[in-house]
């Protein structure tokens, strides 16, 4: 056991910290890039993204030829830590960089790689994924959006939902059914679709928070060229699963964001006075805050197991299957704690919004219940329902 970071990673930390100090301006620091982004902020974020891309800080795990640094997992973790420390906005294309690019690198033609990766990295093109449908949520493989081959084209018809960044996106990595006669997981193909293609209609999806973080996308006889196909025809499920399994350093981002919120809540409790006494002196408040702090640190400990495995070239262990579940639970604990500690003030602004947003944590990216089924059956070896 050794929880210290390798010295090269610590050296990289100093380099990153210095670069951020030099390049991050106050008007960009802390811009919230979730949900509705106004045009002025979007412009600033694009400029910041471009600056990061030029110095190769956007996707350091990418190969050097595509604008990355071929960096290992510890460097990725260090970069995430320093970005959070400085309250610097994350790159604009989280879905593209982490989920779509790996598939393009693995299955794309030289022309596709050339056309898409660089502009994705710089933030010039924003990407979304078109996976979920109204009737295909947790059961994603039952998707029904069709693409039929007509000459040199695919013609797409159907509807997608829960498209993160869909209303800002220039391109979409789309899963469509190309062989309706094949079994569920077969007969799906992956297309890279220009969102400006005629017949694509995007409707921002207003969530219960009131913000538009997602979109719905409708496809009405949308004609895309053959060259839009990513990977082999009818094997889009394999292409997509490659996408979903490329998220290992992301576990650091998850606990960094969570723990930042927890320390902010503790700071608010210290600053808030009730009956002339700091809220943080209240024994009940202290118990609640200590508990949520504890859980944030435990989430970090769990993430470190996965990160260390990756750093040592080992496959992810059993802990990786529960990291999403525990994160969602701790986000929920934090939301409740904010209410218990701040009272009515937790209906307002940041903590009010956070409480509402928390509802998504146990749903998005696989509900807690579906994940528990997966843990029970695949990790614990329990039988499927009789």
């Amino acid at each position, binding site marked *: *056991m*050794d*929880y*210290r*970071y*390798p010295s090269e990673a610590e050296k990289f930390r100093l380099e990153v910290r210095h670069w951020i100090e030099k390049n991050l301006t106050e008007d960009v620091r802390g811009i919230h890039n979730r949900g509705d982004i106004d045009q002025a902020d979007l412009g600033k974020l694009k400029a910041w993204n471009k600056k990061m891309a030029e110095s190769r800080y956007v996707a350091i795990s990418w190969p050097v030829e595509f604008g990355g640094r071929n960096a290992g997992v*510890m460097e990725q973790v260090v970069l995430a830590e320093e970005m959070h420390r400085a309250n610097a906005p994350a790159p604009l294309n989280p879905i593209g960089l982490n989920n779509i690019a790996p598939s393009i690198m693995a299955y794309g033609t030289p022309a596709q790689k050339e056309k898409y990766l660089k502009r994705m990295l710089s933030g010039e093109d924003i990407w979304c994924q078109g996976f979920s449908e109204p009737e295909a949520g947790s059961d994603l493989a039952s998707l029904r959006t069709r693409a039929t081959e007509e000459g040199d084209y695919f013609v797409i018809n159907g509807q997608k939902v829960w498209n993160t960044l869909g209303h800002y996106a220039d391109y979409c990595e789309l899963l469509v059914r190309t062989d309706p006669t094949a079994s569920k997981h077969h007969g799906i193909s992956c297309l890279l679709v220009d969102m400006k293609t005629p017949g694509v209609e995007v409707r921002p999806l207003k969530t219960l928070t009131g913000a538009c973080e997602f979109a719905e996308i409708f496809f009405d006889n949308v004609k895309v060229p053959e060259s839009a196909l990513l990977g082999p025809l009818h094997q889009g499920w394999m292409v997509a699963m490659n996408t979903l399994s490329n998220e290992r350093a992301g576990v650091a981002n998850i606990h960094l964001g969570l723990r930042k919120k927890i320390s902010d809540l*503790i700071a608010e*409790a*210290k600053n808030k006075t009730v009956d002339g006494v700091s809220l*943080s002196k209240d*024994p009940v408040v*202290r*118990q609640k*805050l*200590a*508990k949520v*702090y*504890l859980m944030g*640190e*435990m*989430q970090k*400990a*769990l993430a*470190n*197991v996965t*990160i*260390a*495995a990756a*750093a*040592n070239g080992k496959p992810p262990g*059993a*802990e990786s299957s*529960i990291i999403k*579940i*525990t994160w969602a639970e701790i986000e929920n604990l934090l939301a409740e704690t904010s209410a218990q500690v701040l009272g009515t003030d937790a209906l307002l602004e940041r903590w009010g919004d956070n409480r509402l947003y928390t509802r998504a944590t146990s749903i998005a990216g696989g509900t807690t*219940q579906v994940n*528990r*089924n997966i*843990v*029970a*059956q695949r*990790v*614990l*070896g*329990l*039988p*499927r*329902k*009789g």
Partner: protein
Amino acid sequence: MDTSYSPEQEAFRDSLRRYLAEKCDQSLARQKITEAVPHTTETWNAFVEMGITALLVPESAGGLGMGMVDMGVVMEELGRRVNIAPVLSSAVAATYTAVLFKQAGLLSALAEGSKIATVAFEEEGLSFLNWHQPSVQAVKGKLSGKKVRVLDALAADMMFVTTSDGVYLVDSKGVGIRSEAVPMIDGSRRMATVYFDQASGEKVGEVRELAAVIDRWIVALCADAVGAAEMALYLALQYAKERQQFGVAIGSFQAVQHLLAEMFQQVEMAKAGLHYALWALDQDKGNEAERAEAHRAAVMMKAFVCEYFPKLGAEAIQVFGGAGFTWEYDIQLYYKRLLSAELLLGNSETWLEELARIVI
């Protein structure tokens, strides 16, 4: 960064696990619990042979000079078999106290297994976080007063005792000392109330220095609890796969699957926190920052065990249904072991308050 045990540590685990499975699994513990009798000399000698009692003793004092990470392996395995031998009290708490206070003579006796020792520091009416303000009196080397919840007091030959004048080392079989067993719901751990009436002792150090001992003690207790929790999950899982109702294994029901998945989640999280705490303790060479980080990690680990393991044990029993409520099935042993891990050495409220003092 590496969060796993070394191949040597895993090999050591394998041999200890094999020994425990063959020679003293939970059925031996069950027998000792039912009869309320002490651990056997045979077990103790085997542990001495394996180096468990010498693990934390420095090489200069005839020990193995190993650390808490190594001890973590031992404690996890002992927890898996609800072992009743006084390893936690003697080989961890008393041994580390002897290291701290440079008690070379006692250390070599502890290492070779010829003596067993414990630490008496809790008192009636003294809240856990005020452990450093004991009321037992020491006047001219004579101790008077009462200590409670003293682990393995009856098995111990020697005892470190906190007094208003510092920490004293006493012969626990000596004149003026009386230990009374206090039975509790977890019969796999033994504790006693100890009365001192002009008992002779020798001052060995200051009370506050024991903070480093308590951190190691609670983390070792947590390692034991992690082993017990892992076994409780394993037993419940096996039962869920075998037990048939409505013509199918009960483990095929989602409601049961989710209970088990949730238990698995707590075990994995606990292991992650435990291993970091063990490592942080071994990094603590006495400077202020190292000490503070080891303490923070230890406090968090104990708070987590207090908060989640009683529920984990209860859910394991729930999976067994009626069978889980019987004396016959072993799962009850594990539930009780987890309850004592929760409540010995400070409960959830205690450690969350200590954590609040650190972070708020």
